[in-house]
C-alpha cells in the first residue's frame, strides 16, 4: 500500500518506453484504417525496433514488464514484486 522507492532511472526509462509505445499504438490505429500507407509502415517498423531495445533495457534493470512468459524473468521470480503501475 505504501509507495515503493524507485530509482530516478526507472522514470527515465519508463517515460522513453511510454513514448515509443505510444508511437506504435497510434500508428497501429492509423494503419487499421489506412493499411496501404507504406510510409506509416516504415515508421512503425522503425519505432517498433526502438521499442524492443528499450523494453529489453528496462526489463534488464527493473524486471519483467509482461506476464506469462512474454518477458524474460532471469533467475529470480520478481513479477509478483512491485512496484505496480499505480504505486509509482
Amino acid at each position, binding site marked *: *500500500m505504501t509507495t515503493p522507492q524507485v530509482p530516478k532511472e526507472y522514470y527515465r526509462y519508463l517515460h522513453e518506453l511510454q513514448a515509443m509505445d505510444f508511437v506504435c*499504438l497510434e500508428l497501429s490505429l492509423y494503419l487499421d484504417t489506412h493499411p496501404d500507407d507504406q510510409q506509416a509502415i516504415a515508421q512503425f517498423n522503425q519505432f517498433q525496433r526502438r521499442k524492443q531495445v528499450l523494453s529489453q533495457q528496462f526489463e534488464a534493470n527493473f524486471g*519483467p514488464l*509482461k506476464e506469462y512468459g*512474454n518477458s524474460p524473468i532471469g533467475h529470480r521470480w520478481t513479477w509478483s514484486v512491485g512496484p505496480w*503501475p*499505480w504505486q509509482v
Partner: protein
Amino acid sequence: MWIYEKKLQYPVRVSKCDPRLAKFLIEQYGGADGELAAALRYLNQRYTIPDKVIGLLTDIGTEEFAHLEMIATMVYKLTKDATPEQLKQAGLAEHYVDHGSALFYHNAAGNPWTATYIQAKGDPIADLYEDIAAEEKARATYEHIINLTDDVDIQDSLKFLREREIVHALRFREAVEMLKEYQTEKKAF
C-alpha cells in the same frame, strides 16, 4: 487472449490528497461514457462487425483498458491517504460505507455500472455511430472534469485522455467511410 503490461500508458502524477476530484473522476471509471463501458462495448461488437473493422475495434477496445487503469490510478492516489472524515466532506461517505477505500464501478453520482449503458445492434453502421457518439461524450466529460480542477498534474493526464477520445472518434468515422465504400462496391457487382 490478453497480456498485462506492468506500466501505465501515460504518466499519472498525483501530488496531493483530493477525494473530491476522485469523486468526479469515477464518472470515467464506471459511468455511462466511461472507459469500462467503452472497452466492453467495442470488444463485444467486434465479433459480428465486418472483417475490415475488427482490428480497429480490438485495438481501441484494448487501449480503453489502459485508460481505465490510468483513471483507477488517479482515483487510488487521490484517496489513499484520505481519512473517513475527509471522504465524508468530499461526498464519498456512502461510497466508504459500502466499499471502504476500494474502487468500484459506479458513476460520480454513485449509480453502479450497468450493461444498459452500451449496445450491440449487430448492424455495423449503427454500432459504429454509437461508438463515435461514445467517444464524443467521453471527450466532453473529460473537458468538464478539466474545468473542475486546477491540479496541473491531473489536467495533464486528462488532456492526454481527451486527445485519445478525439483520435478514436476520427478512426471510427474513417471506419464508417470504409464500410460505406465496401457496401457500394458489393452492390456494383
